[in-house]
């Protein structure tokens, strides 16, 4: 054991780390799976908005004496339904609707925080909602997080086949009688649930990063749904563990201010992983363009136009 670093054994022995790894893994797996659908359906904005909107519920719940968890979850589901209610099918309209709900929700957060005179430093509360920390979470939340995570996945499981059909061709799905509206609403609720519990435990920034990052990376690598889901959950978990480790280790070499925030470490890894994969994929197609067709049979030549 050297003086300038802790061994892996120390890392895993720390109860803070253990809690962080458990919650982080649950979140990574649940949001990694839901993230595939989020990215495919181009609802990343909604996913991020819901994470930040948890703060509305959090600060509002504090005002009326509810627990933070139900404040987050309640606000998320309410926001999801609102987005769906005023939103429109077209991509542009939906983006603006999400933005308006998001803005209004954050305005409410400003209001609630203003009224939250019992919090010493309301400004700090706002900032910490955004940034959050995996190493500073209430261990009592862990069972609830796991249960709610499973609920979110079950909800997704009831509609995932419809979502897949719709993602291939929306009009075709409608023509075949797929209840796209219902499936969309159920998905949005599952998304809200997953995102709120992750936002509450690990902060809004990390919540979005684990929702979108591993999923986008997985979709760069494969088009096959099952593989993408598995890859997304695995990458998310791997990145979470690696980020926790780096953050923990940085205590020894990051200088007088202490360790690097775990949010930053995981987010940075996620972004680098995505970039690296994207570059690798682009290079692979340049260097090795594959032939998808058999060679043209002899005698069949593409001719130039007869007129020239």
């Amino acid at each position: 054991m050297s003086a300038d670093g802790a061994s892996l054994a120390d890392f895993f022995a720390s109860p803070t780390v253990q809690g962080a790894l458990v919650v982080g893994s649950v979140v990574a797996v649940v949001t990694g799976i839901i993230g595939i659908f989020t990215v495919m359906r181009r609802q990343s904005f909604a996913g991020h908005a819901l994470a930040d909107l948890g703060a509305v519920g959090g600060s509002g719940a504090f005002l009326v004496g509810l627990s933070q968890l139900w404040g987050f979850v309640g606000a998320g589901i309410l926001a999801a339904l609102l987005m769906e209610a005023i939103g429109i099918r077209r991509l542009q309209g939906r983006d603006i609707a999400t933005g308006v709900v998001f803005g209004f929700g954050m305005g409410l957060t400003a209001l609630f925080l203003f009224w939250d005179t019992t919090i010493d430093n309301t400004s700090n509360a706002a900032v910490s909602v955004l940034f959050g920390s995996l190493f500073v979470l209430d261990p009592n939340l862990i069972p609830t997080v796991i249960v709610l995570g499973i609920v979110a996945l079950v909800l997704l499981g009831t509609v995932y086949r419809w979502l897949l059909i719709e993602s291939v061709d929306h009009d075709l799905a409608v023509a075949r009688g797929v209840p796209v509206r219902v499936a969309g609403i159920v998905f949005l609720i599952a998304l809200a649930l997953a995102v709120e519990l992750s936002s509450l435990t690990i902060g809004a920034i990390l919540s979005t990063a684990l929702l979108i990052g591993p999923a986008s990376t997985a979709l760069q690598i494969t088009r096959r749904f099952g593989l993408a889901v598995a890859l997304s959950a695995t990458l998310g978990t791997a990145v979470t563990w690696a980020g926790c480790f780096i953050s923990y280790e940085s205590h020894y070499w990051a200088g007088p201010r202490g360790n690097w925030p775990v949010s930053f470490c995981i987010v940075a890894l996620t972004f680098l992983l995505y970039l690296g994969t994207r570059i690798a994929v682009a290079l692979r197609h340049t260097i090795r363009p594959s032939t998808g067709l058999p060679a043209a049979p002899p005698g069949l030549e593409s001719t130039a136009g007869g007129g020239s």
Partner: protein
Amino acid sequence: MFAPFMTNAWIAGTIVAVIAGVIGFFVVIRGNAFLAHAVPHGAFAGAAGATLLGLNPLIGLGLFAMAGALTISVLERHARNDAITALALVTMLGLGALFVSRSTQYSAEIFALLFGQILGVSVAELVPMAILGWLCLLAIGVVYRPLLLASTLPDTAAARGINPRTMTVVFGFLLAAATTTSVPIVGALLMFALLVGPPAGASSMTRRPIIAIPLSVLFTLITMWSSIALAYTINLPIGFFVTAIGAGFYLIGRLAAWLRRRARSAPIGVRSSA
């Protein structure tokens, strides 16, 4: 509320609202509210970092706004652009978290940069703001037609010799510039709300782009002015009023659109009796 110390607030608010109204028109027509959220909030992280490092926050703000907008515009591809926006945003915010952790001091400026506070603007800050804002508007005037075409009909724009991807980068650049002008004054949340709500309302209420832009500016000005007045008299956060009134304009626009659709599908008898 028209006391001398409020004058700067009114002027600053007006400048921000005009810029947001014009750029917001394009945000809405491109359907990219996410970009309008990501650039100000990502830039906020840069400003926070600069503040805590003892630098002028404008430097961090401008740097992050530009870097964020360019990263998103360059890396985006048709199928996944909102995912890359999300990743760029959280990376910038993550860096912000890193900066916050590096300093033991906390600054109320950070809260203001996020949720906004319009009072306490000095004349010295107003002048560069006005100049940069004016340049933004000039730039929009110059690229108005290619940007409009590339935003609405990207493939036909290519036939006219316009590269839609170039226009995307240009627009990102303009949004970053507008952000750098406005966020120090009104904060990231207000900038975002002004870019989305009132312009969306205006766009729903007219068919002509050349009318939609001034109307968007008008709605945004009304939002800004009434919010300043209300925040002053009722003493609640200005962020709440801007987002609420902005949402109100949006809903009015949706109502107008719904009524229009109802009128078009009404039976002939009803229509001709009007």
